[in-house]
C-alpha cells in the first residue's frame, strides 16, 4: 500500500481524517441526531477518493480517523471507535471496486455513501446483537440507523462533486486526482 500513495496524498488523507475527527468531536456536543456522523464520514472519505482517485484512499482515511480518534480519546476512544470509522470506509472501497467506472460521478458518490451508511448501521446492529439484544429491536434500530445515516451520508456526498469541480477548476487536483471524470 505504501507505493500506491505518495507522501503528499498520504498526508492529505491524514489531514482529512484529522479534520473529520475534530469536527465530529465538536458537533457531538451540539447534535443528538443519530447518523449525523455519516455526513462527515461520507464527505471526507469521498473527498479523499476524489483527490487521489485511488481505491483504498477511503479505507486509509477511515483507518487514520479511527486511530486518531483512539489516540485523542474522542468519543469513548478505544478500539470500537476504530471499527466505527473503518468499517464504512472499507465497505465503500469494496463497493467502489464494482462501480469504479460505472454511472456518473454524482450517482457513483451517492451509491458509495449509501453503502457506507448501511455498513455503519450493520456495525451498530452487530454490536447490539452480540450483547444479546432481542432481534426485533436490533432490526428496528438497524432500520432507523440506516435510514437516518443514509440521509446524512447522501447530503455529504452531494457536496463532494461541487468541491471536486472547484478544486479541478483551480488546477489543484494532481494528475492522479479525479480530473475530467
Amino acid at each position, binding site marked *: 500500500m*505504501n507505493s500506491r500513495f*505518495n*507522501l*503528499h*496524498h*498520504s*498526508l*492529505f*488523507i*491524514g*489531514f*482529512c*481524517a*484529522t*479534520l473529520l475527527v*475534530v469536527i465530529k468531536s465538536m458537533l457531538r456536543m451540539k447534535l*443528538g441526531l443519530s447518523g449525523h456522523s455519516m455526513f462527515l464520514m461520507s464527505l471526507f472519505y469521498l*473527498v479523499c477518493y476524489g*483527490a487521489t482517485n485511488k481505491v483504498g484512499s477511503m479505507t486509509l482515511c477511515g483507518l*487514520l480517523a479511527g*486511530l*486518531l480518534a*483512539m*489516540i*485523542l*480519546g474522542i468519543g*469513548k*476512544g*478505544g*478500539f*470500537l*471507535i476504530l471499527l466505527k470509522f473503518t468499517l464504512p470506509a472499507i465497505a465503500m472501497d469494496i463497493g467502489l471496486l464494482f462501480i469504479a467506472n460505472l454511472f456518473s460521478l454524482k450517482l457513483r458518490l451517492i451509491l458509495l455513501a449509501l453503502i457506507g451508511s448501511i455498513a455503519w448501521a450493520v456495525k451498530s446492529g452487530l*454490536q*447490539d446483537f*452480540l*450483547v*444479546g*439484544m*432481542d432481534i*426485533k*429491536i436490533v432490526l*428496528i*434500530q438497524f432500520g432507523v440507523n440506516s435510514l437516518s445515516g443514509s440521509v446524512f451520508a447522501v447530503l455529504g456526498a452531494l*457536496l463532494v462533486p*461541487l*468541491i471536486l469541480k*472547484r*478544486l479541478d477548476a*483551480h488546477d*489543484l487536483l494532481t494528475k492522479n486526482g479525479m480530473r475530467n471524470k
Partner: protein
Amino acid sequence: MISLKSTKHKKCRLTVIASSVGEINCDVFHSKIKLIICSAAIIFSIVLSMSAFLVQQENLAYLLLVNVFLLFHAWCRQANLAPLIKLFFIQSLVTVGLYALLYGGERLFEAIIVVTRIILVMLPSWWLACTQSSHQISQVLGLLLPTKWAFVVTTSIKVLPFIGQEVRDIYHIQCLRGARITPKELINPINWYELVQCVLFPLLIQLLSLSKHIAHSANQRHFDKSSKHTHWPFN
C-alpha cells in the same frame, strides 16, 4: 545515496546542551516504562471490551466489578464522568423504551442486562482515553504501523492546533467579509452551503497545500530514500 562527509566534530559551545544529556537519559528510561504500561493498558481495555460481548450472564457480575474498579481509578485521576453518564441514560432510554414498547414490562430485566453489556463494552475504552496520554497511545500505535503511516499519524496530531487555528481564522475572515455563516444565520439550512463554500473549501485547499509542503520538506530531508529509519533517542 547521500553520505555524511565528516563525523569528526569541532569542539563546540555545548555546555548547556551537554548538562541536560544525563537528565534526558533518565527521561528516556521513564518514558520506556510508561510505554510498556500504555501498551498493557491498550491490550487490557480491548480484552475487557470483548469480554462484555462474550462473557456469560452469570459471570457478568465479575466483569462489572472490574469495570467499577476502572471507573474508580479514572475518577481518582479526575476523569470527566459526564460523557459516560450521558451515554448510560440515552442507551437506557432507547433500549428499555423499545423493550417496554414491544413486550411490556415482562422482559425489562433482559433490557437492563443488554444496557449493562453495552456500557461494559464502552467503559474500558473510556478508561483508556482518560488515563493514558495521547502521546503515549500514539507512540504505541506508531510501533505497529509502517514508518510512512506512523509519520502521517504523528504529523496529523502535530498539525492539529495549526488546522484548528486555520479553521477559526478562515471562519472569522469570511464572517467579516459578509458571509452568512454566523451561528444565528446557520440556523437556516440554506446558509449551510455558504459555510461549505467559503470555509470548508478554502480549508481543503490549505490542507492540500500544507500536505504538499510537508511532503516536500520531508522528502527533501531524504524521508523517501529508505523504507527503514532510525529514531532520535530523546523523544
